């Protein structure tokens, strides 16, 4: 019996070995796996049956109950049934009295194993030595019971003989086998998990961006990942076994000073056996500097002994360069702000306090930066201007506007007022705390003072102009009244001279001889002349002073009408007067009438000695000016005296030749000048004269 037991044991060991080998490669979750394990268990059962403990006549005992039940337990229905079928087939083929019973035993073992399998699956029980023992007992008690199915009543004897060994040994065997297999399974599962984990870690190690360097306690490199190779620009072979202090051209601090290799993070870890984090080093590799951020950690063995140093390298060159650019830009910006001629300040939009100010701001306000940074803008604003500033600030805060500009007053520390031009802009920064505004301030005190000075001067000027105008107006009025009354008063005696001399001539002509008549005529002639002079002078001065009233003048009609005014029928018979299609003009009609009256009268007068007077009036238009022309074929004048032509009281003919006061042309010239026109004349003695004058087109 002992030999058989040992045989069974050997089988069990063999089973275990096969199982261990198989479970690594064959998943017992897949169908194919279940088949294979079924076959395996079945074959082992067969081998077990080849070396049984024979109890008499075809009644054999082997470990098939153990094997099959365990197969079912671990493998489930398919494994269990396949192994059972194989075992049953062999048992039946072996034959003998106990064949049927034996088969039933196999079957029952399988079933019981299956039951416990499902119990385990449903997590009602776990597979452990207790459940295995229970299963073992159950299987073998069942087996014993089945003995009673043996023919011829030998069952009882069999039972009596084998009960104790079966119950004890076989149960123990079941438990043992189960535990061993369990153990194997979990060990293998664990080792598989471990492989998986290892695989994952290896993958991370290989592909991560940060470089990883493993060094030993002597500082020699043991392993690096791909990223580290890239950073260090050396591959693993070149690095292995070398110390970190040896692999770099040079290593520097951020300030450019040499980085002592004793202070390398990994070396520090070796010394202190503590983690060293966040060290920035500048690695000079191939003449270029590479900035890295280093974290170094000590790794211990499970027994707490020192194992390796684990160092992470992060290439921060780009980031550092970017930061440097930002820093440079900041420095530049700060310089600009500080040296600006405009006051610049950063203000808290909620409480109005000054967060930052530049020098100019401080100097505009006559305060130091420190003083300003303690206060808010309201406290230094001129009270009248607070409302205006505040309402704009509120709009800015509400987002209704994104900047505003006002002129306001600040009160300096010495109490004086300064006018400034203030521009405020909202800052769209992503920062913690209250949003901020940027304020620009220009000192416009001088400008403001200049402005008010100008206003004052202007109003003074206006006042002076008004006064002067009033003076002029009153002077004009005085002159007007004066000239009127003068002419009026001068005329009265003239009337008397004329009138009474006339009476003499008419009523006392008999008392006068020829000479008396002649003298009387001289008196009258002179009185008349004086009257004429007075009239002309009066007109002349009036024209200078009067306002121009412009309107559109039909020149052709005016000339025609005046011609008829200054001539009588008899005279007209001897005059060939031609008016061409002359242009209309915008001018003062009364003054123009005076002009034509004078010019036409002159033309008529000075050509009166010719048999037929030929007078022609014409006009041309050119570049915004109309040029009128009146020609006569009269006596003409000597061009040598052209300068005197338009002078007041200047005559180029004597009264014997032609009567005139010499005021007419001066008057005409004055009128033309007042219209911004020009007047000139051409003539030849006895060939006639041409008078031209221009008027601008309005």
């Amino acid at each position: 019996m002992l030999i058989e037991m040992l045989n069974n044991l050997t089988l069990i060991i063999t089973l275990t070995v096969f199982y261990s080998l198989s479970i690594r490669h064959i998943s017992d979750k897949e169908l194919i796996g279940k088949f294979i394990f079924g076959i395996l268990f079945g074959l082992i059962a067969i081998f077990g049956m080849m070396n049984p403990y024979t109890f008499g006549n075809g009644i054999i005992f082997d470990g098939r109950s153990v094997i099959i039940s365990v197969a079912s337990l671990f493998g489930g229905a398919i494994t269990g049934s396949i192994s059972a079928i194989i075992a049953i087939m062999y048992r039946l083929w072996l034959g003998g009295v106990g064949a049927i019973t034996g088969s039933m035993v196999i079957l029952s073992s399988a079933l019981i194993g299956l039951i416990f399998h499902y119990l385990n699956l449903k997590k009602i029980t776990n597979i452990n030595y207790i459940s295995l023992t229970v299963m073992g007992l159950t299987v073998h008690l069942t087996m014993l019971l089945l003995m009673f199915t043996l023919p011829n009543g030998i069952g009882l004897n069999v039972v009596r003989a084998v009960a104790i060994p079966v119950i004890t040994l076989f149960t123990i065997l079941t438990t043992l086998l189960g535990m061993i297999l369990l153990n194997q399974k979990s060990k293998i599962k664990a080792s598989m998990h471990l492989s998986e984990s290892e695989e994952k870690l290896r993958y991370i190690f290989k592909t991560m961006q940060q470089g990883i360097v493993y060094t030993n306690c002597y500082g020699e490199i043991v392993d690096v990942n791909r990223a580290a190779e890239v950073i260090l620009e050396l591959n693993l072979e070149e690095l292995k076994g070398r110390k970190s202090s040896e692999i770099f051209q040079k290593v520097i601090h951020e300030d450019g000073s040499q980085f002592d290799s004793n202070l390398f993070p990994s070396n520090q870890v070796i010394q202190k056996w503590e983690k060293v984090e966040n060290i920035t080093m500048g690695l000079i590799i191939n003449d270029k500097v590479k900035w890295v951020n280093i974290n170094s950690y000590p790794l211990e063995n499970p027994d707490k002994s020192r194992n390796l140093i684990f160092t992470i390298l992060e290439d921060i060159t780009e980031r550092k360069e970017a930061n440097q650019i930002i820093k440079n830009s900041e420095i530049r910006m700060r310089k600009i702000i500080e040296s600006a001629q405009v006051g610049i300040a950063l203000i808290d939009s909620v409480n109005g306090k000054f967060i930052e100010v530049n020098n100019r701001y401080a100097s505009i306000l006559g305060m130091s930066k420190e003083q300003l940074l303690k206060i808010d803008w309201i406290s230094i604003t001129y009270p009248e201007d607070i409302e205006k500033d505040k309402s704009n600030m509120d709009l800015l805060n509400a987002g209704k506007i994104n900047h505003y500009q006002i002129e306001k007053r600040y009160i300096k520390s010495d109490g004086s007022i300064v006018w400034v031009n203030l521009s405020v802009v909202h800052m769209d920064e992503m920062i913690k705390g209250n949003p901020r505004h940027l304020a620009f301030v220009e000192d416009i005190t001088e400008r403001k003072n200049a402005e008010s000075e100008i206003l004052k001067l202007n109003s003074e000027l206006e006042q002076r102009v008004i006064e002067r105008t009033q003076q002029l107006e009153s002077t004009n009025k005085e002159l007007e009244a004066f000239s009127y009354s003068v002419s009026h008063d001068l005329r009265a005696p003239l009337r008397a001279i004329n009138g009474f001399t006339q009476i003499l001539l008419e009523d006392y002509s008999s008392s006068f001889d020829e000479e008396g008549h002649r003298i009387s005529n001289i008196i009258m002639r002179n009185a008349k002349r004086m009257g004429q002079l007075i009239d002309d002078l009066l007109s002349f001065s009036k024209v200078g002073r009067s306002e121009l009233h412009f309107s559109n003048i039909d020149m052709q009609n005016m000339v025609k009408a005046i011609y008829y005014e200054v001539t009588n029928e008899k005279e007209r018979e001897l005059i060939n007067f031609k008016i061409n299609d002359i242009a209309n003009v915008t001018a003062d009609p009364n003054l123009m009438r005076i002009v034509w009256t004078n010019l036409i009268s002159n033309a008529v007068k000075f050509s009166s000695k010719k048999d037929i007077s030929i007078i022609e009036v014409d006009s041309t238009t050119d570049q915004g000016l109309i040029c009128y022309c009146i020609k006569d074929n009269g006596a003409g004048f000597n061009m040598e005296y052209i300068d005197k032509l338009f002078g007041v009281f200047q005559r180029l003919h004597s009264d014997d030749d032609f009567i005139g006061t010499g005021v007419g042309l001066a008057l005409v010239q004055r009128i033309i000048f007042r219209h911004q026109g020009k007047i000139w004349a051409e003539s030849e003695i006895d060939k006639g004269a041409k008078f031209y004058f221009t008027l601008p087109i309005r």
Partner: protein
Amino acid sequence: MDVIEIVLIEDNPDDAELMIRTLKKNKLANNLVLLKDGEAAIEFFFNNKFTNDKQYNQYPRVIFLDIKLPKISGLDVLRRLKNDKNTRNIPVIIVTSSTEDPDIRTAYDLGANSYVVKPVDIINFRDTIQKLGLYWLIVNEKAK
């Protein structure tokens, strides 16, 4: 009582003489009363009721009024004449020294009927009389 037909209010004696001479020459100066200034005119028309040297019992047919009078001005006299219901309807001819006189306008506004320019020649005079419809004044002889 004599009938007056023309009242002449003129301060300048020479001007007055010339005018009267013209009228006389043309036999138009019958029953002409000369008043020397505005004050005299007011006195005559309103206070003394037509007393000069003689007493007159009816209004004149026409008044020649010089605009420029000392003391009470011609325009003021005109104003009074035209405001009084008795004298308002007597034609008043303004006598002026120049057509440019701005007072002519004012005189018309106050109700003057026409104007003549000094010196008053006969043609000027006749035209004005005609304009005013005072044809009867141009009668050579008045039946006495």
